[in-house]
């Protein structure tokens, strides 16, 4: 049983508590033993940073000016990242839940218990009764290991990863159109683009250091077109802001392409020689005149025309998108409708002419390449493809018939937990109680499990539901590679030994494999040994790492895959020869009709609710909600409401209001701002329990990518009486700096 019976005690023991100073406080006379060049643990810019180490503690950072992507730049999460390593909330020894309380256990005791219980469950209900949920903030070595551990160690089909909540719509769209899942251009192409379209990407808050390239483009005289329901800092700085209704991206993209076709700004030669299915796409696009597009999206027709002309007439141009268009039941279609624009104008495969997805997590790219996805094998191979199965089975030393078939997406896995098909569960690098949609049903899923194991370095909201919690390591305590959003493979270096009895995740998984009687397949003593097997397993696949070595990464400041041979220096830009990765080497148009989100506003729930991030918090917040500085800047979620809407509801700024959807409700302070559409409200999602935005969001899935529709559902706002106010923190995002510091 996995219930949380004593929440207050768990919070008292394991936090989140705020911590805000280096080990032993701020000092100016510390002796620095070594400076370790590495990368940030957070987003997929993977900024270079130097960690300052004194007596086996990371005591600060120094900008890493030599790393070409960020040249020393960092966002506030990166600056304060090192404060995690010696945080008082760190899990220092294995924990076993007894009578509702987590009690210290030895590694042997905890690992034996996990292996025994998993074996019991699998003997009783079958191998597939244990599910595994992994993540993309892990190094690529670990993501590879998790895929192999599920199929060879546990021998279950059920594995998926938290990129399912992040990158899968982009991945599916890229695979359909180009036959490969990777951003097509390096970021140093951005300053060369005359026009940049940023669709559903608030990079100022989610990808801050990417703004270096955006502003270089601006300095070169470039123009940004930003497509977003909110006037985000990125949208404010852009030249043209198309402020659409959430979930109407197809209408806007088709509308722009309609203008481009009408003005004959398409590249007919490129279309004829290098693409398929243009006629079908064109037929659909012809229906989306600017007026039709405007009617659906709420964006004035003139702006759609202007955007289409700007991009269509420019010699160079790039389109980049992020979760804003991908977190939808039409996520894949949204992506494909933008790719249609890229293909119709032939702006691909050359400097300043290109396309890119903006990855979310640090290893959002690498984490979707080597087999921790439900239907994937290493090297971006498919578990449904007999040839691919045969090759990977041979690398792993098993018979192809032993390799399980495809599993299901994580939201469907949680459904299977509720239905009783999955009884045992192992998770690491995720926090479903914050990040999965419809929190109340996720809670039911976890509570219904027979045995639940979690690996983490802090006790997350989801860890609280586990029977056994095993202490893993932060990024500074292990080594391995990650691939940033450009598919640049970089090296994370170990700075310090793990504290207490914490152990690297790969060590924990290998120890479990041994206890499950499958140790012979996991004969690894270091990340380097795992990487060497990964190179072979990926050889010949799309994401070919065979020619990458740790030494080459350090020498070249990263290697962009594919890198098939030891002499190869990597592939910064795809499609330079106009050859795509489908069998006929052509790219593919898709005829994309507009479909509304799964849930649209109605009389009962008249507002569109969209969710997203703030710059001070990272994903489910398990790391950042413990760092004093970051929490001071944004201590709790809030709901952005337009003043017109607030007037109608008689809501004052800062007043706590109840936000209700068909799935749940939550109380949030109102932030009344003109920067959002009057028909739309926004809540950031980084918090858990009664502060979770995901109490409200819709778990409806995209039929192809199985991504949940976080970015559009229907909600209403209710005024509440003062005495119902919960007692929570005072500050909000939007506070002045002096106010924030005074709260210290």
């Amino acid at each position, binding site marked *: 049983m996995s219930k949380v019976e004593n929440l207050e005690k768990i919070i008292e023991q394991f936090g989140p508590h705020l911590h805000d*100073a280096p080990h032993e*406080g*701020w*000092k*100016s006379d*510390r002796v620095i033993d070594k400076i370790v060049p590495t990368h940030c643990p957070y987003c997929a810019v993977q900024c270079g940073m130097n960690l300052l180490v004194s007596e086996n503690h990371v005591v*600060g950072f120094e*900008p890493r*000016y030599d790393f070409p992507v960020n040249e*020393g*730049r*960092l*966002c*506030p999460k*990166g*600056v304060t990242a090192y404060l995690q390593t010696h945080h008082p909330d760190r899990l220092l020894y294995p924990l076993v839940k007894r009578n509702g309380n987590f009690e210290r256990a030895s590694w042997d005791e905890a690992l034996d218990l996990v292996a025994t219980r998993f074996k019991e469950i699998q003997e009783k209900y079958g191998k597939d009764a244990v599910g595994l949920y992994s993540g993309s903030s892990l190094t690529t070595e670990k993501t590879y290991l998790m895929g192999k551990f599920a199929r060879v160690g546990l021998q279950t089909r059920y594995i998926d990863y938290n990129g399912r909540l992040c990158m899968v719509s982009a991945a599916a769209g890229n695979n359909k159109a180009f036959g490969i899942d990777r951003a097509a251009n390096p970021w140093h192409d951005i300053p060369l683009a005359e026009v940049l379209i940023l669709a559903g990407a608030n990079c*100022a*808050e989610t990808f*801050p*250091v*990417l*703004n*270096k390239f*955006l*502003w270089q483009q*601006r*300095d070169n*005289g470039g123009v940004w077109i930003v497509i977003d329901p909110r*006037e*985000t*800092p*990125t949208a*404010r*700085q852009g030249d043209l802001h198309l402020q659409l209704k959430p979930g109407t991206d197809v209408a806007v993209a088709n509308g722009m392409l309609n203008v481009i076709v009408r003005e004959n700004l398409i590249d007919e030669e490129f279309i004829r020689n290098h693409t398929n299915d243009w006629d079908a796409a064109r037929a659909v696009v012809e229906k989306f005149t600017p007026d039709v597009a405007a009617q659906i999206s709420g964006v004035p027709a003139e702006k759609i025309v202007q955007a289409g002309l700007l991009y269509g007439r420019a010699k160079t141009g790039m389109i980049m998108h992020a979760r804003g268009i991908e977190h939808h039941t039409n996520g894949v279609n949204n992506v494909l409708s933008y790719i249609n624009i890229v293909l119709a104008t032939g702006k691909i495969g050359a400097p300043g002419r290109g396309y890119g997805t903006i990855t979310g997590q640090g290893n959002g790219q690498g984490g979707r390449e080597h087999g921790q996805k439900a239907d994937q094998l290493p090297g971006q191979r498919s578990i449904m493809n007999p040839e691919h199965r045969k090759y990977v089975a041979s690398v792993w030393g098993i018979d192809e018939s032993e390799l399980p078939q495809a599993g299901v997406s994580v939201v469907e896995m949680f459904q299977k937990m509720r239905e009783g098909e999955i009884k045992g569960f192992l998770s690491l690098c995720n926090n479903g109680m914050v990040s999965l949609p419809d929190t109340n049903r996720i809670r039911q899923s976890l509570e219904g499990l027979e045995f639940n194991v979690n690996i983490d370095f802090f006790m997350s909201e989801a860890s609280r539901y586990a029977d056994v919690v095993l202490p893993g390591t932060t990024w500074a305590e292990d080594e391995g590679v990650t691939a940033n959003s450009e598919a640049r493979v970089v090296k994370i270096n170990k700075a310090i030994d793990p504290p207490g009895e914490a152990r690297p995740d790969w060590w924990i998984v290998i120890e479990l494999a041994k206890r499950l009687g499958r140790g012979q397949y996991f004969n690894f003593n270091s990340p380097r040994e795992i990487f060497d097997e990964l190179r072979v397993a990926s050889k010949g696949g799309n994401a070919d790492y065979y020619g990458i070595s740790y030494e080459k990464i350090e020498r070249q400041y990263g290697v962009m895959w594919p890198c098939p041979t030891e002499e190869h220096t990597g592939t910064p830009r795809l499609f330079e020869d106009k050859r795509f990765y489908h069998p006929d080497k052509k790219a593919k148009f898709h005829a994309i009709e507009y479909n509304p989100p799964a849930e649209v506003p109605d009389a009962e729930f008249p507002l569109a609710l969209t969710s997203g991030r703030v*710059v*001070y918090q990272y994903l489910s917040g398990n790391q950042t909600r413990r760092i004093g*500085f970051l929490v001071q*800047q944004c201590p709790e979620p809030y709901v952005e409401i337009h*003043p017109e809407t*607030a*007037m109608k509801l008689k*809501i*004052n*700024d*800062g007043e706590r209001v109840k936000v209700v959807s068909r799935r749940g409700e939550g109380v949030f302070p109102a*932030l*009344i*701002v*003109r*920067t959002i559409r009057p028909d739309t409200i926004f809540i950031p999602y980084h918090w858990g329990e009664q502060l979770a935005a995901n109490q409200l969001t819709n778990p409806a899935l995209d039929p192809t990518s199985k991504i949940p529709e976080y970015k559009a559902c229907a909600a209403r706002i209710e005024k509440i009486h003062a005495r119902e106010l919960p007692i929570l923190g005072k500050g*909000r995002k*939007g*506070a*002045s*700096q*002096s*106010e924030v*510091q*005074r709260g*210290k």
Partner: protein
Amino acid sequence: MQETMFIDPQRCIGCRSCVAACRECSTHKGYSMIFVDYIDRAETTATMPTVCMHCAEPTCALVCPADAIKMNEDGVVMSALKPRCLDCRNCVNACPFGVPKYNSEMHLQMKCDMCYDRTSEGLKPMCASVCPTGAISFGKYQDIVPLRRTKPVNAHVFGNQRVETKVYLMLPTDADEVTVDGCGVFEGRVAVDKAQPTESWIDTQVEESDKSNEF
């Protein structure tokens, strides 16, 4: 030192990376000397960083009764000298940019010294090192200004006081100086819509914060 700071407010994304990084300078002891504020969050997401402008004739030093605030040979105005600082807070109240803060724990005025421990060794200040967008840049005038489409301005008029600064503001205007009227309100500020719900907690917080310029 030929290098100086260039503040380009239109690039600021409000991430406060500079604020976090400022604490890391070893002489700052965990205190940040830089401020990032929303201009008017109800209307816009615009934000603006404030660093010490390092005035040619620093008001803070002029009003200091103890002569505790010194300018070095590079034109950098330093924090108050601890043995001299009288805790009088004249500088805190007099600075037209609102930069110096009084540290009640240390009984000392503290302000941005352009990371003198770093710049004296040829390193960039922390804030300019980490700023993702170049809203805060550090370098030579001839290296930075030609790359930008904004105009460097280092003269400010506050009512009757004209102040020239070592630090440049990069502005999308033709103006040669920044003029602030006697009420401390920028000219041409968009009038607040009267229909909007009043008592903005943001304004309230700003008013409260003005009462005590303390760490």
